[in-house]
């Protein structure tokens, strides 16, 4: 397992890549907000559950990470690069014609990508299926599904959670990247989920509410064990790390001017 210093360095590296690669899309723009909100969560997942540098696609008992909120792909690719699963030549193809690296992560086992995301709400059921298959095969590995809080508006998420609990899938871990914003703006004013933690608990999950940017808190929640499937509600800041993007719904998907790019990179330099 990597130390805190290492993981913060990796997260910072990933944020730089998000800004770089996102800027490279020009006017097409990229999902900066979500990519930046999930970086710390995904960094800690990879530091705990995956061996850096090799996409271990052949081993049946590998842990599996499923990015259900597929539009966080840019952040995901950046973390995969930070851990050596994808090289910079591949990520540099982000949103270039014909590249496998586009706005939503596409299954590619050689790059350690287990799932094709994009359509929201479809990752948890898939993860439940993988966890059931693992149990049939007597494999003890983890299935970690990352959803957004906006994504939890989808009814299918709750069908999946009901079944994870019904089937006692202890190795199923749901993480909600709760950044409080969705495409049209403020989550609470669009569709208030009220007591999300209470809802998850009532569905039979052991719920941890944490700061989704604090690496110790993320790590502790991920490493806790128990008889119930786990749900980690990670409170995050959409656009985390870039002042003008933070908590600003306009950066759910947007494009950077040269001036904004320079400012963003300066802010990340100061953070290092």
């Amino acid at each position: 397992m990597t130390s805190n210093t290492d993981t913060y360095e990796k997260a910072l590296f990933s944020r730089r890549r998000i800004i770089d690669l996102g800027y490279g899309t020009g006017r097409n723009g990229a999902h900066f907000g979500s990519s930046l909100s999930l970086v710390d969560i995904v960094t800690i997942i990879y530091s705990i559950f995956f061996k850096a540098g090799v996409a271990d696609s052949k081993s049946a008992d590998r842990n599996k990470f499923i990015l259900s909120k597929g539009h966080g792909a840019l952040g995901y690719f950046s973390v995969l690069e930070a851990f050596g699963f994808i090289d910079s030549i591949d990520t540099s193809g982000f949103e270039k014609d014909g590249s496998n690296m586009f706005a939503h992560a596409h299954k590619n086992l050689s790059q350690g990508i287990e799932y094709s995301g994009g359509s929201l709400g479809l990752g948890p059921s898939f993860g439940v299926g993988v966890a059931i298959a693992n149990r049939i095969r007597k494999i003890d590995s983890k299935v970690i599904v990352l959803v957004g809080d906006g994504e939890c508006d989808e009814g299918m998420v709750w069908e999946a959670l009901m079944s994870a609990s019904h089937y006692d899938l202890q190795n199923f871990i749901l993480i909600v990247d709760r950044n409080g914003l969705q495409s049209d703006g403020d989550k609470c004013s669009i569709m208030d989920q009220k007591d999300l933690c209470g809802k998850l608990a009532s569905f039979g999950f052991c719920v941890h509410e944490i700061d989704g940017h604090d690496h110790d808190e993320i790590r502790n929640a991920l490493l806790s064990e128990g008889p119930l499937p786990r749900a980690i509600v990670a409170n995050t800041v959409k656009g985390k790390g870039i002042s003008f993007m933070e908590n600003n719904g306009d950066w759910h998907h947007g494009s950077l001017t040269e001036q904004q790019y320079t400012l963003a990179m300066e802010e990340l330099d100061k953070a290092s």
Partner: protein
Amino acid sequence: MTEINKSSSRVFARLGQSGAVFGVGLIDQAEAAENIVVLTADMAKPAGLSKFSALHPEKFYNVGIAEQNLVGVAAGIANEGFKVVASAQACFLSMRCYEQVRQYSGYMGLPVIYVGVSAGFGLTFFGNTHYALEDVSLYRSIPGMVVISPSDAGQAVKAMAAALASGDPVYIRCTGVPGLAPIYKEEFEFEIGKGITLQDGSDIAIISSGSVTRNVLAAVEMLEKIFNLSFKIIDMHTISPIDKDLLDTCLNCKILVTVEEHFIDGGLGSVVAEFLAENHSGNKPHLLRLGVKNKFSIPGDYSYLLKANDLDSDGLVKQVTDVVRRDFSDDEM
């Protein structure tokens, strides 16, 4: 593998298509292959899965009334190398979770076998919410998806065995109600994508799929008494990919008729229309597409609904007769 013979065909017929698939066929297949997992969305009893679930509780998952989750969980299990069968009522398995099927089995290519129970008018007095008359149209538009509509219960058992062996995503559309007389009473070869010529002929070709094929056979017997014409009958159990070689053999006929228990637009008739529109042989048979008119029906029992849509043998005879009289001269008939 259960052989089709006089006695097994009778047993299958009594169980109906899904009853034979789940109550007999899949039980045999699960004995032969360790890695079969079956899921349902609260449809175990009506689909005929009670015996399988009792024999193989570790291979059986009932996710409740949640077809979207059914498909997602099935896909996740299939992703790990299991052969997965997901079953629900055809109307919901095609419409409620259409995007899920497209995502997991189309886009991600996961080879789940989807079994649509009580397709067509199978749910009779439940009414239009429960009819599946657009399922072929939907499933066949998913890239890589195989669509099979067996013509009798024994063929449905063979279709399942072939689907399990194929490694492709497959939709098996179970039509009819239990008790329909079998079409196949002795062993026959079933191959996905290869239609079966039930009767060869040269003037009129009738291409059919599903349990309504029985009515086609009866209708042709009657038509042969009326007209001095030669009828070819094809059981086109696989609608996608369509058997183009077999369709080529129909191009010399003057009339091509498609028959299906499905809305006329989007199913077998549309597939054949697309084939004809693109064929360059110079022969252009007239096409008559018979199926369910594109409107909702007033409920009734199975034979009432087929009759109301002119899909009973009398209705088929009438519709074909009109076109024959139009297209053939008195001398030819």
